[in-house]
Structure formats: structure tokens, C-alpha cells
């Protein structure tokens, strides 16, 4: 491989990282908003949030990407820059998976904690901010970590739309060299390294957050695999 081709791969990495960060931010925002809405006291809010979740988890991420790239411009006249179109499709889809994680973690907080908040006449907002979230967020980190890896794998899908991410640069190099074993091995390795770094990052975050409420992270594969409450999902959910 020549240096020019490596430059292409580097550009691909940059696009993948940008897309990963942007769509992770959007997905996190969507997860929290929708996840909290799913434990709201008004049934209509719960229903709408549940509807959103089922629709976006029900379809495939790749179909969402096609939809945002092809149907949105035709039907509504919104032509998005590819990076934002990819971010939108991935963020909304993975946000729907994430909202299940948030909901599961909020539900797993001991009800006595909320009752304590009511007894002290906290407002609902204070209960959420000061009691529920500080205890629920550390529980969310391991499943969010899995979801982040799924999102990283999902970013490869935008290459189908011709966006120059890492997977796409692999295709370009294959066409240039007429040889595919080497380049695809490199591409897979690069994805693996990014995934490994993300896992480390999330584990560090979990340690810090759990230390904040006086707990130690669990080790090893948990039984959670068998008790995943939500059933369409990638990435698993907090019990």
C-alpha cells in the first residue's frame, strides 16, 4: 500500500470518528429524553415515547439511512449534508435502543428512594435530578458501552450511501489495488482497536461514577444476558 492510499484510510477514520461522536451525542440526548418520558406520570407522554421506541427499534438502521437520504429530500424538501443525514438516522435509531436502557435503569432504583424524596417534598424535577439519576446513571454505563460498540459498527452503514468513512475507504483501496485481503484486514483491525478503546473509556467512566455513590463495578459476563427485559434490541438493557 502506498502512502496516498493510507492517507485515504486516515481520512476515512476521521469521518468515522466524527460520525461516531455526533451520533453518540444525539443518541444519548434522545435516550435520556425518551427514556425519562417513558416513566412520566401522564399516560399520553408514556404512550408517545413508547411509540417512538417501537417504531425506531422495529425498522433496520440501514433502512432508516436510506429513508433519510432518499425520502426526506423528496417528500419534505430537506436536503441534509451527508454527515448530518447519517448522524440523524443513526442517532434516532440507536437513541431508541438507548431509551430502553435509561427506562430500565430508572425502574431499577429502589422505590423507597423516590418515596423518601416525596416525603421530603422534593418536586418531581428535583427527585429526578437529585435522587433517581445519580443512582441510575452508573447502572446504565455497561449497557451503554455495548450500545456504543453497536453504534460504531452501525457507522459503517453510511458507506453504502457513498459517504467516505472507514469502510468506504476500504472499498476505494480495493478498487485501486485490485486486491482485497490486506486492506480489509487492516480495516477490520482499525475498527477493533477503536472498539477496544471505547470499551476501556466506558469502563473508566463506570468506575468513576460508581465510586461517586460508593459502589464497585461488577466483573465478568453477567447473567443479564438471560434477563434482558427488552427483546428487539441490540446491546442489551439494564435489568
Amino acid at each position, binding site marked *: 500500500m502506498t502512502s496516498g492510499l493510507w492517507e485515504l484510510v486516515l481520512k476515512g477514520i476521521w469521518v468515522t470518528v466524527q460520525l461516531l461522536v455526533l451520533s453518540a451525542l444525539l443518541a444519548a440526548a434522545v435516550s435520556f429524553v425518551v427514556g425519562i418520558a417513558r416513566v412520566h406520570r401522564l399516560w399520553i407522554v408514556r404512550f408517545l415515547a413508547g411509540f417512538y421506541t417501537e417504531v425506531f427499534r422495529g425498522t433496520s438502521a440501514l433502512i432508516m439511512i436510506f429513508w433519510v437520504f432518499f425520502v426526506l429530500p423528496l417528500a419534505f424538501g430537506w436536503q441534509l449534508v451527508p454527515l448530518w443525514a447519517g448522524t440523524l438516522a443513526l442517532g434516532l435509531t440507536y437513541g431508541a435502543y438507548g431509551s430502553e436502557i435509561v427506562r430500565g435503569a430508572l425502574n431499577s432504583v429502589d422505590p423507597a428512594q423516590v418515596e423518601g424524596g416525596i416525603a421530603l417534598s422534593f418536586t418531581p424535577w428535583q427527585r429526578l435530578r437529585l435522587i433517581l439519576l445519580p443512582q441510575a446513571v452508573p447502572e446504565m454505563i455497561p449497557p451503554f458501552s455495548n450500545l456504543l*460498540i453497536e453504534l460504531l459498527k452501525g457507522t459503517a452503514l453510511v458507506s453504502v450511501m457513498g459517504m467516505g468513512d472507514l469502510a468506504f475507504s476500504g472499498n476505494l483501496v480495493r478498487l485501486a489495488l485490485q486486491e482485497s485481503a490486506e486492506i480489509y484486514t487492516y480495516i*477490520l483491525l482499525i475498527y*477493533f482497536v477503536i472498539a477496544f478503546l471505547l470499551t476501556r473509556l466506558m469502563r473508566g467512566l463506570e468506575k468513576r461514577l460508581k465510586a461517586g455513590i460508593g459502589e464497585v463495578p461488577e466483573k465478568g459476563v453477567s447473567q*443479564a444476558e*438471560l434477563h434482558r427485559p427488552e427483546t428487539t434490541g441490540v446491546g442489551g438493557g439494564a435489568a
Partner: protein
Amino acid sequence: MTWDWSAVGDFMPHFWDGLLVTLQALVLGSLISFVLGLVWALLMRAPTRWVRWPVGVVTEFIRNTPLLVQLFFLFYVLPEWDITFSAMTTGVVAIGLHYSTYTMQVYRASIEGVPAGQWEAATALNLPLTRTWTAVILPQAIRRVVPALGNYVISMLKDTPMLMAITVLDMLGEARLFAQQNFQFTEPLTVIGVAFILISYPASLLMRALERRLVR
């Protein structure tokens, strides 16, 4: 927003062809992932680390890299090594292999979930190892595995559109072809999107019900 019902009507024959391909890929891919996942899970319990370690690394690698790139890898690299499959076979193998690294975790968790007393009882009864597995451990483990595997089948369903990238005419492949020939993108893409929800949502409800029945 323009919606043309006649385009939907024109697309439907292609839709059924695509649905058939998608379901075929799903069934075959699931079978491969169920069997291969069990093989991985059993290998991970091998007594020597010279087996456990390579299996662990390989499955971890497959699980943490994109299925799409794995598809490209199999589709373009295998022919260079003089192994040629049809696009459909390549896709099925890739999906099966990818998801076997997930189902492996399910098997592993459920085998570990069998109480230690069961193992001890089998030892106390002097059962040979094969009999311990076939008559004591696996029957208890499999029960708990079913709903979790079902979830992965649903995830797999939602990953089958990727086969389009290696020229398989699944639902998305048919939709794209139709869209490009007639320049009508809205209708076919929306139809298959709705079709996915109509298949996967009832399936997920079914899995939830199964989970309540089978896992205590």
C-alpha cells in the same frame, strides 16, 4: 409530500420476492448462528487455555467489528483464495458467523446459570461427561436460552438489509432496484420500513411472552 398508491401496487410483486429472500437468509443465518454459537461456548469451557484463548480472541474480534465490512471481506477476499460462493451463501455465512459470537454469550450465561448442585449431583451419581451434558446440564440450559436467542433472531432480521451491499436482492435490494428504475423512492422504502416493523414488533411481543413462560 406525494404518495402514489399505484407505485405501491407496482412494487408489491418485487416486495414478496424480497421478503422471501430476507426470510431465507434469516432462517439459514439463525441455524448457523445457533449451532456455531454452541460450538464456541463449549470450546470456551475446554480444559486448556490453548483452546480458550484463541477462541476468545477470534469471537471478540468478530463481535466488535462491523458486519458490513465482514460481508465485504468474505465477498471479495474468498474468491482471491479460489473459494467462490454465491452472494446469498456468503451473506448467510457472514450473518451466521457474526451472530454466533452473540449466541455464544447466551449459551455461556445459561450454562453458568445451571446451579452447581446439578454438577455435583451428576458427579456423585458417577455419570460420564457426555451423559452429564446431554441429560442434566443442556436440558436445563436450553430452556432458558430460547427467549434470548429469539431476541438475536429479531436483531438478525434487522441486519439482513446489509446483504444488499453484496448484490443480494433482499427486501431493501428490491426496493432500491425498483426506486432506481422508476425514480420513486418514497413508496418502496416506506413499504419495506413498515414491513419490518410489522414483522419485528409482533415477534418481540412473542419473545416477551416466551420469556415469561420459560425463564421462571
